[in-house]
């Protein structure tokens, strides 16, 4: 059995070739700022120590790409409130359960006796609902375009009546647009998430690179994928081209996954949506359409919530998330704020920039 990617995409000789080419181009450039918007990209960059291989004048910024980090406290509060009910089982993805909300996290709720279960996807939650017909099973759905179709598919296939969804999905292109138009970060290029493009195709990204004249490369998640994407951005910069290129051609088709797009459009509608640390983004999230209201936990239950708090005092997560601050520039980093005692959301998730820096950053 060969692990896909190990031959070329994690190959050191190939890495050295790419780095050599990057260095050659960089000799003629001043400072270059490249931003990615995906927790998995940051994971790859940090896990393989890629920053230590790049020339000093390339800066890789981490944008708001961790679905757990951008999930507002109010949505977690909702799951916590529902989880307090005796007849309810809360199901969600693994790293969601540790994220602190206004008062407590789902992990703390679980330790206090609530039935909170980690699942690998909505299908597992449906099975739990079938096995527990006397309980309400709520799936706390977070994530970007990549996780949405799975939930849409289940909702279309008439799940049991005791199943419902807290819909906290976010959409990536809207966030990219906000970053480029408002943050004045002077970004020279974007590395865009390959798995998002697998679903939505290239077109939403092309619109963005055309409109704002900025190089954009859709990239895969192996170390050499990311380095190739950086090289492709640098070449565009030198040639003064501003387009969306596809590095992840082995997976991403230009038109995306039509079937998945259909499912998304059938079940969900785009809405303006709050992102933790960033604020409300126009068309930045999804809500369940009214014809499926019976599966929408928001409409099914009467949930009373306290006023929520996204960013605690002193925390700089809102600046880290848009690449304005490196985690180590925050005065709480490593001192008051650690993965064991996280103060902000970026330190909680394994995809959060602060936790990744805490674990892997080599100063």
């Amino acid at each position, binding site marked *: *059995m*060969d*692990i896909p990617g190990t031959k070329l995409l*994690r*190959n*050191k000789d190939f*890495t*050295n070739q790419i780095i050599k080419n990057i260095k050659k181009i960089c000799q003629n450039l001043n400072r270059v700022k490249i931003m990615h918007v995906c*927790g*998995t990209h940051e994971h790859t960059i*940090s*896990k*393989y*120590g*890629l*920053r*230590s*291989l790049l020339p000093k004048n390339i800066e890789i910024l981490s944008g708001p790409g961790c*679905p*757990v980090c951008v999930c507002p406290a109010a949505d977690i509060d909702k799951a916590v409130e529902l989880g307090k009910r005796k007849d309810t089982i809360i199901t969600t*993805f*693994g*790293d*969601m*359960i*540790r994220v602190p909300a206004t008062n407590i996290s789902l*992990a*703390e709720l679980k*330790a*206090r006796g609530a039935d909170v279960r*980690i699942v*690998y996807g909505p299908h*597992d939650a449906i099975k739990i609902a079938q096995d527990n017909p006397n309980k309400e099973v709520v799936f706390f759905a*977070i*994530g970007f375009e*990549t*996780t949405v179709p799975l939930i849409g598919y289940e909702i279309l296939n008439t799940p049991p009546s005791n199943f419902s969804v807290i819909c906290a999905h976010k959409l990536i292109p809207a966030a990219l647009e906000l970053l480029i138009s408002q943050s004045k970060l002077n970004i020279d290029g974007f590395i865009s998430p390959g*798995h998002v493009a697998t679903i939505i195709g290239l077109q939403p990204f092309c619109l963005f690179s055309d409109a704002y004249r900025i190089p954009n490369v859709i990239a895969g998640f192996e*170390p*050499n994928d990311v380095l190739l994407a950086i090289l492709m951005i640098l070449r565009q910069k030198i040639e003064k081209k501003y387009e969306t290129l596809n590095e992840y051609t082995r997976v991403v088709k230009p038109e995306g996954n039509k079937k998945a797009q259909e499912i998304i459009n059938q079940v969900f509608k785009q809405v303006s949506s709050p992102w933790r640390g960033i604020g409300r983004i126009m068309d930045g999230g999804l809500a369940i359409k009214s014809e499926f209201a019976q599966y929408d936990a928001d409409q099914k239950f009467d949930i009373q919530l306290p006023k929520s708090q996204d960013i605690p005092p002193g925390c700089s997560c809102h600046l880290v998330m848009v690449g304005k601050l490196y985690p180590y520039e925050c005065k709480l980093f490593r001192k008051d704020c*650690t*993965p*064991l*005692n996280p103060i902000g959301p970026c330190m909680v998730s*394994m*995809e959060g920039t602060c936790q990744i820096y*805490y*674990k*892997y*950053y*080599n100063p």
Partner: protein
Amino acid sequence: MSMKKLSSSVVRLAHGAGGVMQEELIQFITQNITFKNVNKGIGLEELDDGATIPLEDFEQEIVVTADGHTVHPLFFPGGNLGILSVCGTVNDLIMMGARPIAMTSIIILEEGFSIDELEKIINSFNFTAREAGVAIIAGDTKVMPRGSLDKIIMATTGIGLKEKHITILDNNLQKNDKIIVTGSIGDHQSALIGSREGLNITSDLKSDVGLLLEIYNALKENIQNNQIHAMKDPTRGGIAGALNDWANKSEVGILIDEDSIPIKKQVVAISDMLGLDPYAMACEGRALLSVSEQMAEEVLEKIKSTEIGKEATIIGTVSLENPKRVLVKTSVGGTRFMDMPLGEAIPRIC
């Protein structure tokens, strides 16, 4: 007595997962213990694999370890709770440089637990103890009402003997030491994950659970001569936990070469798929050794001559740079930290 509080108001699973939170729990539990050693032997302060009781007028001292055992599922590819209990206890003694001689055994059972399964576990326990040449000299059983524990828990004490002058300790790593791992890492935890319900991962992966006695016998002379500075079995917390523990206690830096770490393809695949860190995965039949530079090759060859250690490799070097830090030279040539695992391994979302 005043108690320093934990950062959480209730006990969480992560408090038992071999990471930073477990350290905090142990500190909490042990903070007000007054007597922590006997005759200035190794005691609780060291938080090593075990403790020693030096006896006056004897060249040898008694080595004691204590261990609680639970595993889910009870029967997993390559072993069961019974084998695990003996191997865990015996290996802890060996990691102190001691010759295992005896064990005690406590079995706590849930009302309703199958006698068939109990028989299989006990048979494995007894068989493995005999294989290790260890006597079972005392024990206790309790039965708890249904629902008050999950099927069966075992607890053991290990008793061994070693020469007083042998100092194989977590705080004994020295500059230029070579770090040896005795076999592929992460097999045990990956096999458990693969065999748990709901994941439907099929693989031919087996737990690495096993006795390290063969390695101890092969290295007796080097142990006697203090050429092995430290030994540790990377159970909970994996090699990341063990190496960080060493770096912290010895105040040294450890540089690991990622390419040289023996790891099975199945383990890489399972951890990539689930977003788990193989370096934080538990092994139950592996050891890490810190050996003086001059002796490293000889020790390595001796380990490789054993069945359980035939895949042993040198994976790193100890230095005085970056004290208390474990650095990894990654497979593509970058460098990064290998940090202490935080707590329970939770799969990532995407």
